[in-house]
Structure formats: structure tokens, C-alpha cells
């Protein structure tokens, strides 16, 4: 296969396992997806479903070496024709910040408290543009701050992170991530720490910037509203595995997996009629050490019996349910559609 045939970002059977005292934590256990330039992928899933671990794996930010905390990573991560899992740490480091960049959830802790915002942006720029002078880099930093909508960027560039408000910090983080025009931007819960009104500003900003730079974007969140705003494609994760993947519109319109139904049913929505009761997913998220046998969702799945026992024994694979729309569920497609139409859709 030639390089050009490959998608810009292609993750193949990614497994990230952490050895701990209590056992092997299978944080990501067989994840595959593709992402093209200019497209946005939304990854949703509950806390602990392996979203952050996935993004850190792509960035190569898991700690290598040593005994504790270093995960066992297997599978392939192809970025622009290069396998990041196979590449050496030095190579990945060169790509990091330049070709791929990341925005973190909590901008306050993600910035060094002792250095000015400007200095931290300049540093990222100069790391990949060794020839650039400090003054030029500073100019670039001011330009980036301006670009992300920070007023008076020439003054603010010399502020420390704690002197910024939450929204401004997240903007500064974005400026820092975009300073080298990365072609892949990963945003791990970029707005969770922010207020709705500020969140709206930031989401707008990300969308505009993506249009402008044409980069590929992965947005990670547990808020279905946020992905609906931004994503072209959506990947739903449960217990370290993808359970459903598809274009945003279809996924929201006709979700295939009972877990996705659960997610949609459990959130009150402003855009719908008021329901009397929410429909929660019963039970609690699974242990990643002792992942339930078969379908990891089966202990919480109201339809597990309908699989004729397969759900407890057989691990479902992601199978195409509709064009470009895949789900990992033992329920026959027809059955799924029936249940959705009869029981779920009316309540949503």
C-alpha cells in the first residue's frame, strides 16, 4: 500500500495496558479508527473509558522506560505515513508539537506557573524552528494570542497563567498548540472546566481555526452536545473499546448500540420536550482489570438476554450496520432497529 493511500491518521488495533499492583489495567483494548485532514472526530464515553489514554498514546506522551506507570502499547498509529508506535521516541518528539498538538482539559495546571504565557508559547515555537530569533518568536506568540482572541496580546504575552481567566487560559493553550501549524490537533475535554458561555466561545474558536488551517481534529469529551457541535465523525468508547463509530448525523439519528442509547437517554435535553423521567443506564462502569467477559456492556445492557447468551461469552466486533456506521453488538441489526424505533426513540 502506498503512503498516499493511507488516511492521514490511522489507528489500528491499539492496545494500551498498564501493569499495576492490582493487575493489568486494560485502558484501551483494541481501538481502530481513521481520520482525514480537515475532518473532526469526536470521541465520547464515560469517565475511565480510555479516551485520554488514547490521545496520549497518539502523542507518545506515556512515560517510556522505568518500571512503574509505563504502559504496554501495541498496535499501530499511522500519522501521515509513519507508524508512531514503531518510531523511536526521538522521532515522535520531533513530530510532537509540530505535526500534532494537544489541548488539555485544565489549562491552569497544564501551564507552568513560573513562566509567562508568552515564554511558553515561544518555547514551543523555537523548539521546532531552531533558527528563529527570540524576537521573531515573540512576535509569533503575540500574533497567535491575537488569533485566538485575546485582547491586547502584546501586553498579555508577558502575563503569567494565573493572571489569566479560565477562558483566556484555554485560548492561550490553543495558541500554544497551534503555534507550529500542526496538521493534527487533539483536544482532550477542552471545555469541561469552563462555563457554558465561555465554552461556546472556545468551541467556535476551535471550529474556525480548523476551517482556516484545515487540520485534522480529535475532540474528546463526555458531553454529547459538544461533539454534536463540532464533530464530523463520532466514536463511542466503553470500557476501553469502541462500541460504535459513525458519521455524527447518523449516529445521533439512529444510534446502533444500546450503550449509545443509554447515553442519549440519560441526558436531559433542552431541545426536546420535557420528559417525566430520564432513562439512566443502570449499574456502574466496568472494571478495566476484570473486564466483563464477552460484551463488556452486557452486565448493564437491558437487552443482553436477547443475544442468546452470546453477550457473556463472545466479544462483539465492530461491524458495519449501515454505510460507514459500525457498532459492536451481538443483537441482530434488525432487532436493534426495532428496539430503537419502538422503545428508545419515543423517549428521546
Amino acid at each position, binding site marked *: 500500500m502506498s503512503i498516499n493511500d493511507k488516511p492521514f491518521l490511522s489507528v489500528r488495533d491499539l492496545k494500551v495496558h498498564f501493569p499495576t499492583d492490582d493487575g493489568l489495567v486494560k485502558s484501551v483494548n483494541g481501538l481502530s479508527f481513521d481520520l482525514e485532514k480537515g475532518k473532526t472526530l469526536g470521541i465520547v464515553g*464515560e*469517565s475511565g473509558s480510555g479516551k485520554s489514554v488514547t490521545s496520549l498514546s497518539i502523542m507518545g506522551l506515556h512515560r517510556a522506560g522505568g518500571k512503574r506507570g509505563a504502559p504496554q502499547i501495541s498496535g499501530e498509529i499511522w500519522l501521515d505515513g509513519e507508524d508512531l508506535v514503531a518510531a523511536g521516541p526521538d522521532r515522535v518528539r520531533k513530530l510532537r508539537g509540530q505535526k500534532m498538538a494537544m489541548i488539555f482539559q485544565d489549562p491552569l495546571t497544564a501551564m507552568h506557573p513560573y513562566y509567562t504565557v508568552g515564554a511558553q508559547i515561544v518555547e514551543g515555537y523555537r523548539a521546532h524552528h531552531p533558527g528563529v530569533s527570540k524576537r521573531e518568536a515573540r512576535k509569533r506568540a503575540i500574533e497567535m494570542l491575537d488569533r485566538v482572541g485575546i485582547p491586547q496580546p502584546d501586553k498579555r504575552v508577558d502575563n503569567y497563567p494565573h493572571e489569566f*481567566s*479560565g*477562558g*483566556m487560559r484555554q485560548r492561550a493553550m490553543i495558541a500554544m498548540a497551534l503555534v507550529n501549524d500542526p496538521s493534527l490537533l487533539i483536544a482532550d475535554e477542552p471545555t469541561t472546566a469552563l*462555563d*457554558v*458561555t*465561555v*465554552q*461556546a*466561545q472556545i*468551541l*467556535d474558536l476551535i471550529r474556525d481555526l480548523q476551517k482556516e488551517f484545515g487540520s485534522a481534529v480529535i475532540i474528546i469529551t*463526555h*458531553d*454529547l*452536545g*459538544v*461533539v*454534536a*457541535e463540532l*464533530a464530523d465523525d463520532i466514536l463511542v468508547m466503553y470500557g476501553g473499546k469502541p462500541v460504535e463509530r459513525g458519521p*455524527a*448525523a447518523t449516529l*445521533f*439519528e439512529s444510534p446502533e448500540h444500546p450503550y449509545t442509547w*443509554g*447515553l*442519549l*437517554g*440519560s*441526558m*436531559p*435535553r*433542552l*431541545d426536546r420536550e*420535557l*420528559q*417525566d*423521567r*430520564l*432513562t*439512566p*443506564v*443502570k449499574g*456502574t*462502569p466496568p472494571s478495566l482489570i476484570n473486564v466483563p467477559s464477552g460484551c463488556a456492556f452486557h452486565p448493564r445492557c*437491558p437487552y443482553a438476554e436477547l443475544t442468546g447468551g452470546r453477550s457473556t461469552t463472545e466479544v462483539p466486533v465492530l461491524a458495519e450496520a449501515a454505510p460507514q456506521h459500525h457498532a459492536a453488538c451481538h443483537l441482530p441489526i434488525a432487532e436493534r432497529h426495532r428496539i430503537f424505533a419502538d*422503545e428508545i426513540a419515543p423517549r428521546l
Partner: protein
Amino acid sequence: MTDSQTAAPQTATVPAPAPASDREPLLRVTGLTRHFPVTKGLFKRQVGAVRAVDGIDFSVNAGETLGVVGESGCGKSTMGRLVTRLDEPTGGKIEFEGADITHLGVGAMRPYRRDIQMIFQDPYSSLNPRHTIGTIVGAPFRLQKVATEHGVKKAVQDLLELCGLSPEHYNRYPHEFSGGQRQRIGIARALALKPKMIIADEPVSALDVSIQAQVVNLLDDLQQELGLTYLIIAHDLSVVRHVSDRVAVMYLGKVVEIAERDSLYASPMHPYTNALMSAVPVPDPRRKERRERILLTGDVPSPLNPPSGCRFRTRCWKAQDICASQEPPLTAAKAGHQVACHFPENSATE
């Protein structure tokens, strides 16, 4: 499909919010103020004050749920702490069942504590990690010296069951439970003394989406069953819509709008409420292009030095000179809908 999660019986209908007028308010708050002094220097000279809550009025009727929304730092939690008397108000008055409880001391307040209970935001920090569930849920009985028919243990186990937990959990420690279960424990504790009113500060915001719904349903069911009155603080407008009968919107220590739920969500009058609503991301990709969003500029100003006049004017697209000089009072714009704005939207006069 029935929800097997909760033991409480289900009701098929949405309880229609009764008109506020014909009920006696259980809780009435007038001019409530809390300023946190900012001190400086050797002699702790006061150089200013964080006006966290700056004169708010509202009342909650028996059996209803008042939802309070607002952005981070607008004073929601402070308000909640004042009402539960965990904090001392700087000014104003809090009346519970007609009695003034504004400045009662620990001892004098104790009897009222039975009637006013609280559910906390963080299911991790609100349970003492060194106490067993039995101790935690049984604490109200011991502290209030309430005699129980079959002993505290039995009472606690009943409560656990009521909240969808197993009585066997009696001797377990909080760290052995998931977030949702812990929040249930917190709720069981709040219910122990059969309170009349429960104040919940962000009761579900620390929970995962799939768990959040379980807790919201539980709160609903308990209200039905026990006839509770809720004051629920949250920043998630959708959750608030789901649980509340009436909703108050706060901005920088002030209530800017307070209305019946449907009226508020259908036709918000304060520009800020409008902006808030439009900012909520909607989980529907088809709607994203069609929605017109009101994007606010800038951040919430500092409560240390709030803007003059209308506090929202610095971010308001409708602001005029009068907004800077005159503070708009909270007035009833229509039945069951009060707003504090010089130029309210969706109003008859517009």
C-alpha cells in the same frame, strides 16, 4: 421498559407546578447579602469585599423545587451555604416557616437542622472517608439525639434501601462505592431526619452522564414520596429544567431572573438568560447549523469590583447609558416571571 434502579414508585405524570401564589412559602429570603472581606496589611485593614451574594430575594414554597443556575463564581454555592446557615450572612433575612433563622447560633439552629438538609456536590469529599456508611447515615440520629423505633441500625438500613442501596452496605467504607452510590449515601443522610426542605448544591455535576440520570430520578422519586421541597443549585440548564418547578438565574451575586420553569425556558427575558440558553450545546448535529447562537464577549467581571448599574451591561449587546447608572430592580414582568433588566426580551413592551 421499567427502570429497575430505584425502589421508589414511579409516577406517570409530570407534577404540574402549582401556582406559587396559593402556597405558603416554606423558605423566604430577603435582601440576602454576603460580602467576604478582603484584608491587607499588618492590622488586617479591610480594603474591599468580594460581593459573593449581593442582596437577593426569593422564596420557595412547600413541595416545589426551585432551581438556581448561573456561571461559575456567581454566588450560587454561597447562597446555598447561607440558606443552610453554614455561613453567616452579612445582611438580609432568612425565614424558615415564618421563623427568622438569619443569625441563630449553633445550638439555636440545631432544631431547624432537622427540617433543612443539604446534599453536597462532591460525592468524594462529602463523606468522611474514615467513617462507615452506618456511622455516616446514622450521624443525624446521634447528633440530633433522635430516638428510633428499632434502633439506629435498622433506621439506617431502611434509609439505604429507600435510596436504592443494599442494607448490607452498613459496615462498608465510602471508598468502596462508586460515585453514584456515594451520592445516594449522601442523599440517605440528608433524608434521615425527614426534613421538609433539601438544599442541593450541584448534586449531580460530579457524576458521569449515565449515573447522573439515576440520581436525578431518585431525587424526583423521593420528592414524590416524601413531599420534599428542593432548592437545587446547578449550572447545567438542561438538568435544572428537568428537575425544577421554578428557576432563578444568578449573575454576579444577583438574581437577574426568576420564573416558572416553562415560562423561563420558553421565553427568557433577561439577555443573560438568553445567552446562557443559546450557549448550551445541543446533542443534535442537524440543528447546529440552524441555531443562532448569542456569543457573549469577555469574561464575568470580578465580584470584588462589580460594574455599576446593571452588572451584566459589560457583556450585554443591548446595554445603554441607563444600564451603567441605574440598577434594574427585580420586577414581575408577567405572572410568575420576574426579571431585572431595563430592556427585557420577549416582553410585552418590547
